[in-house]
C-alpha cells in the first residue's frame, strides 16, 4: 500500500532491515530500499528502538541455530554505518503514548508511526498491521522505492 503524496524520506522498521540483508528472503524491494538509503539517495530515520529490535531478532535467530553470529555482527555494523537520523524515543514518548492509545498498537509499533508522521516519511515495513496504521507506508515485499518516488527516488 502507498498512501499520501510524494515524499523524499523513509522510516525503516526492523522487519524491513532484516529482509533487506537476508538474500534468502528473496525480497528485492527491501534490498532496493536499503540500497537507496546506503547510497543516500533517500533520507531515512528510525526510532532508537530499531537497533534493539534488529539486535533481538538476531539474538533469537542465533540462539535457535539459524544464523551465524558473525553474519549478525556484520549486519549490525552495516546498520551502524548508515546515515540514519536516530530519533530518541525519550523525546517523543507523549506522542507515542497518544498514538498507541489511539491505534491499539504497542508503544514499540507506535514509535515507528510517530517518527514517520513527524518526518512526513514513508514507513517501510514487512508488517501489515504497522503499514495499515501509518499515514504513508510501503508494505514489503510489494512496494519498492521506485513505486513511491519514481526512478529518481526523490533525489533527496
Amino acid at each position, binding site marked *: 500500500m502507498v498512501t499520501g503524496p510524494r515524499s523524499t524520506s523513509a522510516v525503516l522498521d526492523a522487519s524491513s532491515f532484516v529482509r533487506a540483508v537476508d*538474500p*534468502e528472503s528473496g525480497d528485492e524491494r527491501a534490498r532496493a530500499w536499503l540500497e537507496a538509503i*546506503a547510497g*543516500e539517495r533517500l533520507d531515512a530515520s528510525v526510532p532508537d528502538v530499531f537497533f534493539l529490535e534488529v539486535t533481538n531478532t538476531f539474538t533469537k535467530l542465533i540462539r535457535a541455530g*539459524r544464523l551465524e553470529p558473525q553474519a549478525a555482527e*556484520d549486519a549490525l555494523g*552495516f546498520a551502524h554505518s548508515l546515515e540514519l537520523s536516530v530519533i530518541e524515543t525519550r523525546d517523543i514518548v507523549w506522542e507515542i503514548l497518544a498514538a498507541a492509545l489511539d491505534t*491499539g498498537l504497542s508503544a514499540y509499533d507506535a514509535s515507528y508511526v510517530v517518527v514517520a508522521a513527524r518526518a512526513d516519511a514513508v514507513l517501510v515495513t514487512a508488517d501489515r498491521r504497522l503499514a495499515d496504521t501509518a499515514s504513508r507506508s510501503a508494505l514489503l515485499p510489494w512496494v519498492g522505492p521506485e513505486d513511491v518516488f519514481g526512478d529518481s527516488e526523490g533525489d533527496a
Partner: protein
Amino acid sequence: MRGVPDELYEELRVEAKREGRSIGAQAIVLLRTGLEERRRRTDLVLRLEEVRRRFQIRPGGPTPEELIREDRDRGHRPPLY
C-alpha cells in the same frame, strides 16, 4: 575559472571568502569533499552486498517478521476493535 556558470562562481567566491581561501583552493576542497562523500556512499552500497553474501537465515522456524511481532506484542494485548 573558465566554463563555470556565473551563479556557481559567485557562490564559490562567497564561500571561499568566508573560509579564508582562494577561489581555486576552495574549489579543490569542495571537489575533494564531494568525491570522498561519493566514495563513502559507494562503499556502503558495496558493503551491503558483502553483508548479504554472508547472511543466511536457515529455514525451520518463525520468520523475522514473526519474531519481531512477538517482541512488539509481548505483554501487549491489542484491543478488539
